[in-house]
């Protein structure tokens, strides 16, 4: 995920990606931080 994503599709994939990246980040002190945007449609 690079930059903003649009809409709410593939949320599960995004969440899994986040978990994966967190696991990888533990190995890399200079890994990028996360910005998690909780939003509601409508």
């Amino acid at each position, binding site marked *: *995920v*690079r*930059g*903003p*994503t*649009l809409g*709410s599709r593939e*949320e*599960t994939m*995004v*969440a*899994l*990606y*986040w*978990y994966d*990246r*967190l696991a990888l*980040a*533990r190995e*890399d*002190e*200079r*890994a*990028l*931080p*996360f*910005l*998690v*945007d*909780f*939003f*509601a*449609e409508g």
Partner: protein
Amino acid sequence: LGAVTYPDDRVGALLATSFRLVRLDIAQREPDTRELIRMARPLWTPTLLFLDPHGAEVRRAVGYLPPEQLLLEAEIALGLVDLLHARNGEARARFSEAADSYPQGHAAPEALFWAGIAAYRKAGRDRAVLAREWSELRKRYPESGWWKRADVFADDKSPS
């Protein structure tokens, strides 16, 4: 945020280069999404959660943010990540630059507050450095709540 703030070129550039962005619709019912929502417990939308690379929360912003306010929030979050990982010089530079770039931003006084702490740590916890840095906070935002927090350490009290 999706209609105005994210399409802003400056916002897009900063988020694309400095963060891994995840957007979660709180109405989604997939188990993984629900687990993240249970963990973060957003009280309102939008809620922006800034996490360091290990997943530690460093900042949270609730409610709509126009582009410049989000840029300032994001810069402060990046500075806090630097501070958390003892990159004090980088943190100080980022906080100062953020305050200079967005002087009207609601979080600009906070940026100067943290700039002082980063400089203090970089200088080996030199109280004179902290006083000098925070004098700028007092000068620019004398009515700010952040200056009032800094004022506790003025004169004869030492910060912890």
